[in-house]
């Protein structure tokens, strides 16, 4: 599928990986819908795309809401008349171990709150499901070629302190197999699905963290640096153009390893 002339929708398009994806696709000639919770981020990205000579609409929305999802899919169709690429970048973290113990008594002093569990599952899993589902519905009904891109994470392998995040991201990584299998079963041949599982990426969330902690993280990355959001955007563009890529999850980590050099 050619990027030029296609229409892309990116949730979480107001910053981080989403911003890089939306700008990369716009630069390559796609018309883009920037979906984000934060209006000022939407405005900044839409202005940048306009300055690049691109076409963009900005839609403030919450990906966990079914009504909002329908609204931004319909808004994209209203603006551009079709939808070809849907990338689900919206994501949050609410880290914490499931149990915390009192150092003196050894008894449980704190449990991971349901609020922290639910918020991450709602955004990172349900939000991705809703976007993929409604984007696919539009593509099927419109008869347009399409690519669905759930964003997983290398932490789908199971990261301590992230039972909520890892659980959501491993489920996101499974989506391409299930979605494409169902498409085959239903005779839907015009839509592909490829998930992307980034490693540690140079988003404001990571570059702003404690620099000693960041240095410790990078010791386990073969590349020796964080993955750039633009490198992930470039991979997604490649997925759009290479139709043989389908029903799979691609990791882009710079070679993230467990301590002592076993690749994750």
């Amino acid at each position, binding site marked *: 599928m050619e990027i030029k002339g296609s229409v892309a929708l990116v949730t979480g398009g107001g910053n981080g990986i989403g911003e890089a994806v939306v700008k990369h696709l716009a630069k390559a000639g796609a018309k883009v819908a920037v979906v984000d919770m934060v*209006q000022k981020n939407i405005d900044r990205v839409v202005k940048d*795309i*306009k300055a690049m000579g691109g*076409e963009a609409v*900005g839609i403030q929305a919450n990906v966990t*809401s079914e009504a909002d999802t329908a609204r*931004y899919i319909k*808004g994209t169709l209203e603006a551009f008349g079709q939808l070809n690429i849907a990338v689900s970048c919206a994501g949050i973290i609410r880290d914490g171990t499931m149990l915390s113990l009192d150092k003196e008594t050894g008894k449980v002093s704190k449990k991971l709150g349901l609020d922290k569990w639910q918020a991450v599952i709602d955004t990172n899993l349900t939000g991705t499901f809703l976007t993929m589902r409604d984007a696919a519905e539009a593509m099927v009904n419109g008869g347009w070629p399409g690519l669905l891109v759930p964003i997983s994470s290398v932490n789908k392998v199971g990261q301590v302190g992230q039972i909520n995040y890892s659980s959501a991201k491993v489920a996101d990584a499974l989506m391409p197999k299930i979605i494409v299998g169902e498409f085959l079963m239903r005779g839907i041949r015009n839509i592909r699905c490829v998930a992307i599982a980034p490693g540690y990426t140079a988003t404001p969330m990571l570059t702003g963290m404690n620099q000693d902690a960041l240095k410790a993280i990078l010791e386990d990355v073969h590349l020796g640096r964080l993955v750039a959001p633009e490198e992930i955007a470039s991979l997604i563009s490649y997925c759009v153009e290479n139709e043989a890529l389908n029903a799979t999850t691609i990791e882009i980590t710079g070679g993230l390893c467990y301590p002592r050099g076993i690749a994750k």
Partner: protein
Amino acid sequence: MPSIRYNDMQFSVEPSGDRWDITYQLPSGASALAGAGIFPGLPEAEAASRALALIKTIFPVGVKSVGPDVNHPNRIGDLKLVGPDVTHPNFIYWDKDSVSSPKTL
């Protein structure tokens, strides 16, 4: 430069070369973008019509109350507020009839 008043919000459809930008005013008075560089080559009247259709889609009219949400109360100190969450993005505040969408009961 067509100006559109819809659902008590003020929108502006402004030319940008042969394309169009849609801006609107936030309750704070600040300006926000609904679209930029869109509808290339369309004349003003058609761009305004397409813009209105887009605006109606992005900003639907209606009241959708969220709550009482007992699992996610708003807290003010020790006080838990479990009524409709007016800060929730799904909550549309509407206290009067809109000029562009009059009551049809």
